[in-house]
């Protein structure tokens, strides 16, 4: 793919000759390699592959939760659980549609905001001039190491009808909502403020996944908004750490060179620092996407899906369908649909954040680049690689981005 264009120089390096055979030193090394890997493979198989395959089977069976799902009185029902979930139009579909809507707004707000906040915090605590950097780094990271249950409970107190947040709002002569008991959608409230408080005919009539389009446009409920703030508060510290590591990997010479070129602070950030952070941005957005689509603990400890189902998420729905209502097939089906959504969005996001083959024309500073873009891309990836080590692997520095 693109690597063929961007990094022709690196290809020969990778195609090293590897003379080996069963009796050779390399062959023996490979055998002992497998030996060392074996315990991990067994553990992964036992705790990951087998359960996933069994869950896949449950999602296509009529298992009622008694005895083994592999026993002979459990029968294969094909895609029936998926059909009733996605196309049935009954309560199962409506619940799933509601959960998808809630979670979509959650992701849409949490991921960009927490990424931006994490980047902002990292840039702030990375400044050499800042006094007490250690203190701020610890303080911002602190919510991340606190148990999410404890922090959710704290949030319930802060946002209760007579809690701290409402007390502060009252000082400002604003009468705060009853946060965790307010099912009204934020977008509906905004639309209501401009006089649109009932559904236009076209939006009320048509729907998707069992709920009308007007309901899709409700936005996150007030209760969900509190949970969105909670997620941003707790996770931006973690991602700040990733950004901070990447920022410190950027050589100060690059910055100096930009200063010498007369770039302003904003230009240095926008045109030098940010492009070099691209692998980390990818990591943070990917982790954020996966984490936010799987949100469960805050819902389980905080709201149990209420008020008026505006905080149910697919992950919580999967749990309650399986464990509370004994609809094991449906619960497993929800989990696999959620899995598909996460994979799809991650791939999509990978495509969007992919490094371009060439620098777009309008961003070129020179008519003929002084160095081939490939070399430039190579340096950038190499510099950013340590920060991206958690997901993309350091190998990307030499191999381009074709993996």
């Amino acid at each position, binding site marked *: 793919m693109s*690597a063929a264009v961007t990094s022709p120089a690196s290809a020969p390096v990778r195609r090293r000759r590897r003379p080996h055979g069963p009796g050779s030193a390399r062959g023996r090394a490979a055998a002992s390699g497998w030996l060392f890997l074996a315990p991990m493979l067994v553990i992964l*198989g036992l705790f990951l592959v*087998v359960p996933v395959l069994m869950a896949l089977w449950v999602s296509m069976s009529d298992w*009622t939760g008694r005895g083994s799902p592999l026993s002979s009185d459990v029968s294969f029902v094909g895609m029936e659980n998926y059909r009733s979930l996605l196309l049935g139009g009954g*309560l199962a579909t409506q619940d799933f549609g509601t959960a998808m809507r809630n979670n979509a707004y959650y992701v849409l707000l949490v991921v960009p905001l927490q990424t931006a906040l994490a980047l902002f915090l990292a840039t702030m605590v990375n400044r050499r001039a800042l006094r007490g950097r250690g203190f701020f780094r610890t303080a911002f990271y602190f919510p991340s190491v606190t148990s999410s249950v404890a922090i959710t409970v704290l949030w319930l107190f802060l946002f209760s009808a007579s809690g701290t947040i409402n007390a502060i709002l009252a000082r400002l002569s604003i009468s705060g909502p*009853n946060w965790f008991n307010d099912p009204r959608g934020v977008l509906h409230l905004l639309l209501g403020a401009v006089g649109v408080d009932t559904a236009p005919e076209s939006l009320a009539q048509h729907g998707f996944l069992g709920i009308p389009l007007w309901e899709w446009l409700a936005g996150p409920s007030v209760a969900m908004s509190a949970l969105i703030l909670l997620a941003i508060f707790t996770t931006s510290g973690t991602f700040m750490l990733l950004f901070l590591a990447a920022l410190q990997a950027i050589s100060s010479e690059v910055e100096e060179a930009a200063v010498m070129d007369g770039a302003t602070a904003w230009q240095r950030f926008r045109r030098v620092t940010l492009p070099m952070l691209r692998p980390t941005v990818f990591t943070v957005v990917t982790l954020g996407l996966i984490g936010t689509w799987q949100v469960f603990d805050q819902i389980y400890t905080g709201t149990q899906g209420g*008020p*008026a189902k505006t905080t149910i998420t697919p992950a919580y729905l999967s749990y309650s369908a399986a464990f509370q209502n004994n609809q094991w097939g449906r619960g497993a089906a929800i989990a696999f649909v959620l899995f598909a959504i996460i994979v799809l969005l991650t791939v999509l996001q990978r495509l969007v954040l992919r490094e371009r083959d060439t620098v777009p024309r309008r961003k070129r500073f020179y008519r003929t680049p002084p160095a081939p873009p490939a070399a430039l891309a190579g340096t950038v990836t190499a510099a950013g690689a340590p920060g991206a080590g958690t997901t993309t692997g350091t190998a990307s520095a030499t191999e381009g981005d074709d993996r």
Partner: protein
Amino acid sequence: MHSTPTRGRRLLASTAVGVAGVLALAACGGSGFDDSGDEETASGGGGPLSILIGSSGDAETDAVKAAVADWSEQSGVEATVQVASDLTQELSQGFASGDPADVFYVSADQFRTYAANGSLYPYGDQLDNADDFYPSLVDQFSADGQLVCAPKDFSTLALIINTGAWEAAGLTDDDVPATWDELTDVAGRLTTGDQVGLGFSGEYARVGAFLAQAGGTMTNADGTEATVDSSENLEGLTYVQQLLASGSAAYAADLGTGWGGEAFGTGAAAMTIEGNWITGAMSNDYPDVDYRVVELPAGPAGQGTLQFTNCWGVAADSDNQSDAVDLVQHLTSTDQQLAFSEAFGVMPSVQSAADGWKELYPEMTAFIDSADFAQNVVNAQGAADVITDFNAQLESLKTGDPAAILASVQTNLQAVLDENAS
């Protein structure tokens, strides 16, 4: 892609090893996947019994442990009581693993699900005191006309009145509301700046009492047809909406409290609708609040309330069924139930203990007298989702359309009932 032949072979090798590993693992697990044959007759005894309960607190745990220890001493069978932190989930895990607890609590709304998938051992015909249970409780726990598990105890909803607030509003014993109009009236008179007349949880398990008073039901008598969108239910729900809209009644959540008892105990509400479990909360958390308990007022169709109950389930997969049934026999006997009542206030599920309970709790007779007109809550298999959805819609009843709410619940409940019938 740049895969070299070497890479391809390695991929093949790793896939092969992976598949072999999975197969080996599946073979190891083989013995665990065996079918357990259905046993119609009681399995033998002698082994130790495990009992799984969902406890309301130390008082209940200690009382059940003491009762089980008593029985162990008499019968010579070892038995241990475990308290579940999440009973539904732990039961589900037990049934799925094929090794559930022998005896456990089953809530009415989970009963149909467990009975339908054969997790429960039907032992009702082996109990000596089967005729002594309240008939409506026996209905709740019967499948195919047979009592499956013995009702443990039960609760009804009644009206709890804060006597301090009552007197402060100039109300007397004669003003205790007997009709909806009188309820509207006293709720209005009890409403002050920081106190509403009536505060209760915005859910079917409370609001449903008004539907019952209006003569409404959720299903027909044999549970095959949903009857949610009846004119009676509409009348009941409209009355609740009027109460809420008048400002003299409010949901507990809207008062910033978790449930009716908290709204009542903190003084945010002068009256609430709760069951007899409220007595424990009042003595523990709000010992200074004086209150009295009266029957709920009558609606257009007379008196009505809801009742809630649990039963003692015995696992179909248990190896000690005869011992387990013997234990349940002991736990549901009149004397033992009165001992439980004394320890943590529950109402006995046998009629012969009713008088004893009234002696124990002369202030609370309204609860047990309400048994005469109490309605069971819906417990059809799969109805839990419908009720959750109903509750979600009830939260916005104040500004919602009662007819539309009932219509959607009707559709959902009918779909569940149809699915069960097919």
